[in-house]
């Protein structure tokens, strides 16, 4: 059977694209890192979004996080690729945004609960970039389709300076009512909640469960060679992305 095609969309400053590509390839996909400039000026079918079965926007500091984290890349996607992106989503193809990618999904409004902007990622309360392995509670009731086989609690590395999930009480209530909070930090106190996120939120999905954004880095769990179970818990996200994309492409 032909491999499913996974697009790792990178831009200037993306810096988690290699390990994300590696995790997808290990999960069985034909993963390709593609620079946003090539999507904007396609010379080849691999430069078109509809060539792919799933999309991952990896971590990094795209365009130096000028103006705000992920803003310039999000703006590029909105004004140049919105129709392609809408078609991609309408075709029920999975989308994952990690860290900077999560910031971009929020900027694009793909994870909103209403027409208004529902959430942002702001500076950590500590005022500092912070790197640590964080315990996350997994909400198995969420519609997110990439949680199969995950324990109720997983440990992923976080590494960010702007990861504080900020939202309004109304949006928070709506996200919770729809079970769209997928990952929560294990407690409200520091350092369990490393950045002061409202509701201890580390990741949310859209109502279809096919778009997921999160601050922690499941693709980095593969470094955890001493603990194969923890490594598998990170890899599961990518295996699920690929198998969900596969089920859809068959259907």
């Amino acid at each position, binding site marked *: 059977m032909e491999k499913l095609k996974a697009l790792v969309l990178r831009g200037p400053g993306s810096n988690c694209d290699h390990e994300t590509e590696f995790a997808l390839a290990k999960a069985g996909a034909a993963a390709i890192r593609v620079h946003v400039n090539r999507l904007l000026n396609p010379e080849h079918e691999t430069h078109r979004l509809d060539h792919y079965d799933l999309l991952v926007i990896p971590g990094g500091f795209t365009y130096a996080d000028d103006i705000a984290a992920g803003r310039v890349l999000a703006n590029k996607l909105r004004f140049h690729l919105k129709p392609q992106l809408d078609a991609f989503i309408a075709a029920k193809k999975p989308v994952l945004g990690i860290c900077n990618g999560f910031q971009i999904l929020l900027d694009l409004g793909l994870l909103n609960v209403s027409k208004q902007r529902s959430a942002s990622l702001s500076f950590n*309360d500590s005022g500092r970039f912070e790197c640590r392995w964080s315990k996350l509670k997994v909400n198995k009731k969420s519609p997110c389709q990439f949680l199969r086989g995950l324990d109720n609690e997983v440990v992923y590395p976080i590494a960010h300076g702007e990861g504080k999930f900020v939202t309004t009480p109304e949006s928070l209530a709506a996200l919770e009512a729809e079970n769209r909070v997928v990952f929560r930090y294990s407690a409200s106190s520091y350092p369990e909640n490393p950045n002061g996120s409202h509701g201890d939120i580390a990741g949310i999905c859209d109502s279809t469960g096919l778009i997921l954004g999160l601050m922690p880095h499941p693709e980095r769990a593969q470094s955890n060679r*001493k603990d194969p179970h923890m490594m598998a818990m990170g890899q599961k996200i990518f295996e699920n992305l690929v198998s969900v994309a596969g089920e859809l492409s068959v259907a």
Partner: protein
Amino acid sequence: MTERHRIEIHNRDSIRDPAVESLLRVARESGLPGLTKIVRHSVYIFEGSAAQGEPERIASELLTDNLTQSYVIGAAQEVPGARSLSVSFRPGVTQPILASIKAGLTDMKLSLEPLGTADRYLFYGEFDEAALLEFAGRFVYNPLAECLGEPGEVALKDRPLLDRPEVILVGLSDDELLAVSRDGGLALNLEEMKCIRVHFESVGRAPSLIELETLAQTWSEHCVHKTFKARVTHGDRVFENLLKDTVVRATDTVDADYCVSVFTDNAGIVKFDDEFDLCLKAETHNHPSAVAPYGGSATGLGGVIRDILGAGLGARPILGLDVFCLGFQDMSAEDVPKGTHHPKRIKEGVVAGVRDYGNRIGLPTAVGSLYYGDGYVANPVVVAGAVGVMPRGCDQKEVQVGDLAVLLGGRTGRDGIHGVTFSSVSLTSDSEALDRTAVQIGDPLVEQVLIDPLLRARDERLYTSITDCGGGGLSSALGEMGEGTGIEVYLDKVPLKEAGLTPTEIWISESQERMVLSVPEENWERLSKLFSEEDVPCTVIGRFTGDQRLTLKYGESVVGDVAMSFLHDGLPRRSLVSEPGSPRRVVDSSDMAAAEPSLSLSEALLACLSHPNVQSKDETVRQYDHEVQGRTVQGPFAGEFQGPQDAAVILPNLASDKGAVVAVGFNPLQSELDAYRMAANSIDEAVRNVVATGGDPDQLCLLDNFIWGDVSDKHELGKLVEATMACHDLAVEFEAPFVSGKDSLNNTHVAADGHKRSITPTLIVTAMTLIEDARKCVSIDFKESESSIYVIGRTGPDFGGSVYFDVTGRRERGVVPHVDGKSHMEHARALHKAMNAGLVLSCHDCSEGGIAVAVAEMSFASGRGAWINTQALANCSAEEFLFSESSSRYVVEVSGDNKSAFEKLFEVLVIGQIGRVTDGTEVVFEGDHERQAVSIEACRDAWLGK
């Protein structure tokens, strides 16, 4: 007049701005105690005629996060009760963010042009205006690149383009020659100036300024290591070439088959496996960091990353390391010499610099150290290192006649002029103000974006050679690349950050993020497509000629012309005399008796754990991303409760379980007592760290970073010579080749009263080795109750430079431990065998604070208790047993079932079982007459500084 549009954005009230909160803390500590609040707004200025509603669209759709921020369009409004200061880039200086904003506007099909941005700060409370402005100049903006005011408010001052004055040397007296060197910031001595005069007399004309600068850059201590290559007479020994006769000779003697390229390239290159090589390099950036801590450390890391990109045909950077040696953080402000930053400010700056550069470029910083000492107040140590990976067969490079010289990456500006010559002289009370231009400004994005296309171009073999633009800028990079062929450089083709640079400034600027390639003409089209597709600037700025000359052109005119032979071989060899150190101290019975005030064993343990040089560096280390790239099998912390791990383990190739193990070692407290043994112990510690974590003792390679004071002083030089001798001897004993290194000399500071002080002589050693299966690497945290605890290696009364003597008021006393490298290697090999056989549950190197601290750390990292028999070792008092810092020792945990197998491996070697792991909550020391217990929690709290 063009229309201007101004958009000002501020956070909504409920949103915190933590960066400004920490700025407020700094302000209150820096002469503005009455400041109550700081608020920061972002200002964007656009030019052009706008369609209806265009500024509103830009504000709401591009610039503002409508959930957390609000915007105002129009002129700046007074804010009642607040003093407002805006900070923007100096007119004429390229502001990187404008390209991003322009891209945003283009994407939105809007026509306004971004003119500039500013940060508008509002200061509330009671304060003195002059103090505020001084504070702003130090902490809020960088006067080298930025100014007060908003874009468009400050007029661009034209700088006259300097002509090319010839510098007449003929007929000058010695004093006048030296004045030419000093006033020009050339850092050339009399002999070198005379040599230049003689050369140009033979050419029949005076040198032009740019030629003199070229020689000063190329001949700088930074670039050519005059001291290390000198002939040195040291007592009855003569070294024809200090470096070659010590460090390099050891590498030749060891003759390790995994060395691929040593001492010749930008980094050392060693074999990893049949597919890949690894390269490694560490650099100091002390002088710039003293003056501008943030920019200094950021560009230090940026520079060493380029060393990796420019090693062989280029490698991918996969690990970063950093070492800082700074003054004690609690130093009172009055004791800080004039013109020097407070150690606390230096720490904040250098940590933030490495953090921002490393994290943004995507380099895991998983190895490092932070050390405090009195000798680093005016001269901090900032070491940045990196490891890279490349496919085998990329280690050779050779420029071909006819190749194009291609400049890649950043634009060239006035930053970093005279960096290398600046780094070769003393800092003074004026350095901070005068030498700012010598400091470079970093932009990690510019370096990050060139990595991917560069490595693709490498894999397509589109270029024949590569090097980075570091110290000396183009002058040093192109001068070096063209050494074998000659080169013609077109200075007017170099893309600039700001208009009006003179040819000399272009030639010697140390603007960052630039690499130089030699490209066969037929590959140019393909190469330039690869880079331009990803918006990475690349420009042809010269051609390698074959005439063995360095020819500098600006437009049609030749502005400089020097023979390569003179540039590279004309420098007179130095001949130096050094003074051997005083006789080695012997054990003095008064050393032990002099303890005052006397501490109980448990008090001493807590004092050692809370010593600034033992205490947790958690808050600093967690600011670095140590997990990016997904390679970090073992990072800086270990165990459920995150104790300090000895070394990092990374996977150079994600598809394989084979790992590289990297750590550093240094012990400056010993260097005033015994420079030879200090160096020996630095190597010993680096080796211990990698072996303790599971690294193979038979695949070691080392880097040296010598950081010394005034080497024109024969005593200081004597210490340097002895340290290099130790490097030779221990490298041979460890069979561990040095593969690269760097010296930073003349780290001195001249105070306003003329008092000159030298830095504490410091050798920082980086060790790297391999681990066949990274899944088997060993961490420090205890794993199993009732397992046995052993110490490997001999314990003796070795307290010279120890933390225990420091906390008990005996810093100047004691004997620095002798290192027996051969014996250490036997133990290390047995330990490695035990690890491979799965016999070792946990292992920690035994260093600062001795066995007591090692056991306590293993305990609180895991949350398991320990029982230690303080009389387990013969002829060893409890004090000596617990706190001695004898070299070459490891503390090891072995499960009960494996004891005999483990002990068998050490049959003829020195090990002792000293206790066991418990399921209790205490670390217990028990002897015949006393029993002392410290709770794990108290140990952890002392270590965390709680």
